[in-house]
């Protein structure tokens, strides 16, 4: 195996958090109050830590080590604030690490934001040159690729219009087109493909696949699991500045999604005050994964369990428990119900636990929540909870992953297709 193109060793990045100060920069007044001695010290040794009660250390990245082989496509996943962007910034030399070392072999180009350095007053043509130069292309190189960039961005007609008059779609297309024509050995891309329409997204993905096929190395941050599983052959999961898992994307993504219990929002617990007079009520509800752990994020290939705890204060006949799943627009996707009265079998037991399983490969990626009700049909609603236990389904590599973020329906339907060629 060839030598790794990226070797990261014990990498760490520390930030100093300043409290009670809204500006990110330091006001000279604070410095002056610290006395002339400290001014000199601060101006001359700004990177030495000054012990001040208003400051707190924060490690955005800590002890991160990994290797990337040439031609690898590495997807970096993790929640907001996990350190993904900091890692990319260190790799692209925008900021300096506090500890550790990075060894890079080859020319690095990074695309952390679409259209960095675009100037609204300049025309499309002028911005292509400017942006190309900022990203490290030479004038000759830009000239050679100019037509290709323009065709890719589909902005031929507006080349001599200032980009401030561009639609946001055109702007993004142009910006990505310039970056996509960089020819580095290592390409670092932050979540920039979440913009643009579906057709263009697909084009960008295609371009990135081309890049990796030509033996180049790609590092890619995304929240869209479908994209990561489609594009990458390696995944790296960061959490609170540390690597939790790395390896084959499917297993890393699945593990990442299972790790949902940090969030307690998925459960509902009701206080006695509201429920005192009710004859039967829902005391708590939460969503669980197949391991029985509370979770709010699921892969589309995982079943989802809704765990409902009811308290029965007074026995009634013909009570049903009904659960509706609603999508983020509030439309009901489906409703499911079961009779609970037959299960109430003793006088003493007051607590009933019901678990509903939503099958795997059923709901499409997106946000959903529940409506749970206890009722006697056509007679009485005994208790009802709406908009609770929100959960998310992520695409971990379905056939529709290329449409991620688009509405292609709420359920995966396993339909029979029959195709025949008609004979003339």
């Amino acid at each position, binding site marked *: 195996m060839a030598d790794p193109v990226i070797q990261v060793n014990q990498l760490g990045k520390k930030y100093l958090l300043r409290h009670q100060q809204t500006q990110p920069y*330091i006001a000279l007044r604070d410095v002056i109050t610290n006395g002339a001695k400290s001014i000199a010290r601060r101006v001359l040794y700004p990177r030495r830590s000054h012990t001040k009660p208003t400051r707190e250390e924060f490690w955005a990245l800590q002890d991160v080590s990994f290797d990337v082989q040439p031609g690898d496509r590495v997807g970096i996943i993790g929640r907001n604030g996990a350190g993904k962007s900091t890692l990319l910034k260190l790799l692209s030399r925008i*900021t300096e690490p506090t500890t550790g070392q*990075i*060894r890079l072999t080859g020319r690095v180009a990074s695309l952390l934001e679409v259209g960095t350095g675009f100037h609204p*007053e300049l025309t499309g043509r002028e911005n292509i040159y400017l942006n190309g130069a900022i990203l490290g292309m030479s004038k000759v190189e830009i000239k050679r690729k100019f037509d290709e960039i323009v065709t890719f961005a589909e902005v031929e007609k507006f080349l001599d219009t200032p980009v401030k008059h561009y639609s946001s779609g055109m702007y993004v297309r142009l910006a990505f087109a310039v970056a996509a024509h960089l020819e580095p050995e290592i390409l670092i891309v932050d979540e920039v493909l979440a913009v643009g329409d579906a057709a263009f997204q697909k084009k960008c993905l295609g371009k990135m696949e081309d890049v990796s096929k030509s033996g180049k190395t790609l590092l890619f941050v995304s929240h869209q699991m479908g994209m990561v599983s489609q594009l990458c052959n390696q995944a790296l999961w960061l959490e609170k500045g540390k690597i939790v898992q790395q390896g084959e994307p499917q297993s890393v993504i699945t593990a990442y999604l299972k790790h949902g219990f940090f969030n307690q929002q998925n459960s509902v617990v009701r206080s006695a005050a509201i429920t005192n007079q009710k004859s039967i009520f829902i005391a708590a509800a939460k969503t669980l994964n197949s391991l029985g752990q509370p979770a709010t994020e699921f892969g589309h290939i995982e079943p989802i369990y809704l765990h409902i705890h009811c308290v029965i204060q007074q026995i009634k006949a013909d009570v049903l428990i009904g659960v509706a799943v609603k999508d983020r627009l509030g439309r009901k996707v489906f409703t499911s119900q079961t009779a609970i009265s037959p299960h109430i079998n003793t006088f003493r037991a007051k607590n009933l636990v019901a678990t509903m399983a939503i099958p795997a490969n059923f709901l499409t990626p997106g946000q959903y929540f529940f409506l749970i009700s206890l009722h006697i049909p056509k007679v009485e609603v005994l208790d009802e909870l709406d908009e609770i236990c929100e959960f998310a389904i992520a695409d971990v590599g379905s056939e529709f992953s290329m449409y991620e973020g688009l509405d292609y329906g709420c359920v995966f339907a396993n339909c029979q297709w029959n195709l025949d060629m008609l004979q003339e």
Partner: protein
Amino acid sequence: MPPSSPPRLIIEAGRTERQYWQDLWRYRELFYFLSWRDILVRYKQTAIGIVWALIRPLLTMIVFTIVFSNLAKLPSGGVPYPILVFAAMLPWQFFANALSECSNSLIVNSNLIAKVYFPRLIIPISAVIVSFVDFLISGMILLGLMVMYNFVPSWRIVTLPLFTLLAFAAAMGVGLWLAALNVQYRDFRYIVPFIVQFGLYISPVGFSSSIVPEQWRLLYSLNPMVGVIDGFRWAILGSSTSIYWAGFLLSIALVTSILASGIWYFRRMERTFADVI
């Protein structure tokens, strides 16, 4: 331009990159593009465009001539007063513009600094280059004035590039200090206009530095622009002006040390610009 063997790079805390100056060379076109952008953008949506670069120094020169020559009746040593003023106005305006542009340049380009890597020195240098273009444009006014007053410069005019270089170094040195400090302490945003305004009166722009009493000349030369302006007058006006060499050498030493320390301070601060800005 694929290199024969791929470049290797090691990123570590506090490592002074050997490749920095190579990178500066590799990104040399960015100097051009950033300056070109600023010049292009400056006169977009203005009716008379680049003419503004001529009008501003011209009007200032007229006001100074009226105030210092016609009202204050200061001596000019036999040179037409407008030329005397303009020979100083040229480097002063260059210095003042370059200083303000340079000290603000990092803040204005903070989005670039936070999102892309390139040697940060490019930003303040191209800000000075933009002011240099203005300097060349207003140089045409000087030519116009010489034709108008039928003024023929002596051989000394060929030394003008040297003094221009000195002006460049002075603007660059002070500008680098202020630019780097401005990232940390935005207070310098308010200090710079003050320096520029104040400097116009304490530098020999509206008058000849020969009116400064002899015993104060060396002290007066602590202002690096005194040396630059005297040099400009010496080169342009010819034999009618003399240069105070002790003061001039002091200015050169001062400018050199400010520039060297400016680069040093900038280099040591630039690694954390992206975190602080």
